[in-house]
């Protein structure tokens, strides 16, 4: 098995989850509070990776982060290394690709917080940001856990976007999902099977753990 690929995937998924938790909370809070009409546009853009083919998203990112784009040029001038076909490029791509998996559970959780508690916080003189930190987030723990787990798991399993933006460079951008594809391409079915079982078990354990955590309050509906 390609342990380099496993290590890289875990590193990428951890970094993506960290970035998403810091970035998605204010975004989800803004979406939950906003009264502006064009909020739906932002919501739709955030959800795009759910329906867009990963190759399409990957293609646009490749163009947007490449040396031909202002972003790519600025990055390589500042840091001395390009964005595409590197870990940092993968990180940007993964964050955008997993954004809906972080934002949507958070928004659902935020919406479930009793609005009276938010109003009580404002009346006691706290700003919206302080209210989110001290009231909304502590009461949205299931949403936070779900967001983190889904972001992590989704990044581990991602294939198309990573392949488009990162290519397939062993030890640098070859993630675990790509290594399965590689093994099959070279007719090494035994390695592909071992890696696949590992991914299958990992995904199952993660999902069971998440649902178990969120179900601690008992069933959602009573039995008639």
């Amino acid at each position, binding site marked *: 098995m390609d342990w380099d690929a496993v290590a890289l995937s875990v590193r990428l998924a951890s970094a993506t989850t960290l970035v998403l938790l810091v970035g998605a909370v204010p975004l989800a809070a803004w979406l939950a509070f906003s009264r502006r009409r064009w909020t739906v546009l932002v919501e739709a853009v955030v959800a795009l990776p759910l329906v867009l083919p990963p190759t399409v998203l990957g293609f646009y990112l490749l163009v947007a982060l490449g040396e031909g784009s202002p972003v790519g040029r600025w990055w390589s001038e500042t840091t001395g290394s390009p964005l595409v076909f590197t870990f940092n490029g993968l990180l940007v791509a993964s964050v955008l690709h997993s954004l809906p998996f972080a934002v949507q559970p958070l928004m659902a959780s935020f919406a479930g917080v009793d609005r*009276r508690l938010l*109003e*009580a*916080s*404002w*009346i*006691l003189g*706290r700003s919206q940001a302080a209210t989110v930190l001290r009231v909304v987030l502590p*009461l949205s723990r299931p949403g936070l856990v779900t967001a983190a787990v889904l972001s992590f798991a989704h990044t581990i399993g991602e294939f198309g976007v990573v392949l488009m933006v990162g290519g397939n460079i062993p030890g640098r951008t070859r993630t675990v999902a790509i290594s399965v594809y590689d093994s099959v391409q070279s007719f090494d079915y035994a390695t592909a099977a071992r890696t696949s079982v590992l991914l299958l078990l990992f995904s199952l354990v993660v999902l069971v753990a998440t649902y178990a955590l969120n179900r601690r309050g008992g069933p959602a509906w009573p039995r008639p």
Partner: protein
Amino acid sequence: MAPTLSLRLRHQVLDVDLSLPLEADAPVTVLFGPSGAGKTTLLRCVAGLDAPAPPARVVLDGEVWNEGRRRVNARRRGIGYLFQDHALFPHMGVDANVAYGLTGLPRAERRARTAQALADAGVAHLAGRATRGLSGGEAQRVALARALAVRPRLLLLDEPLSALDAPTRTGLRAGLRAVLASSGTPTLLVTHDRAEALALGDRLVVLVDGRVHQQGPVQEVFSRPATPEVARAVGTENVLSGRVESRAGGLVRVGVAAGALVAPDPGGLVPGGRVLACVRAEDVALETEAARAASPRNRVAATVTAIVPEGPLERVELDAGFPLTAYVTRTSRHELGLVPGSRVRAVVKAAAVHLIPRT
């Protein structure tokens, strides 16, 4: 001149022009009316939680909170708000809840103010407790402490006792009145409960269908409804203030302006304590001087001052040393020969006298 809260709101059902004096020695204004009258909406507009449709104007003591589309954020208004279901933060303990609004203070002062607020609300013993195990009454007191801890300029209470069961409610009423009176914070309190209005309020504003129909001292509004709508909303009730003279055998003797009334003992009264004696106008019977005394009931001599027809009934205004209102049928008015100036006796069964302790 006392500071005032003035409102002009045309928002949803509300169509209100109102100016309320805010006095420290008579701090509680009760906003009374049937459900759907717009009471909570009015409270939320004052708090800044709802944005009233323009043209709207909310001014507290010369400070403009709302004018047209311009609106001061709720968090900058310096108010206290007690929600119907108390809205305590469930993930925080009692102390953290009360200290929540005390930002920018040194830790020692925060702690001192929290303890003081809990003591003022009469729940010092709840310090250190979690919020989850609190009873409804305790939660209400903690929420009150949280609202008072920030020393608000105006306290808004939305049906403060409605989330509690009936026996708890009666017990907490007197305590709530004591807390509000001793804090002296100008208070606007919403209720649809007559006993609550009488027990807690200094002034009463009657809101029906989004409009203010009458405002004035509580007793006056209850005893002298200005319009049929008010009479329907509050029920015409004679509210007499008096002092407990004696208690015996489950009955209380209450001294009122021109005599004494006997009423069932509601409990919790002390001799010499202030009470309000309430008698519905329907429960006041009239008889002429000629009739003999029959049973040991409450009876006072009175002079008819006015007779106002109200549907099938006639409202008889009396002067018995204190103002008194009675309802009689047209037939009995003829039989009794009532005209303004008639001398009569007003009779009230003891059971029809409802006492509300009033600190």
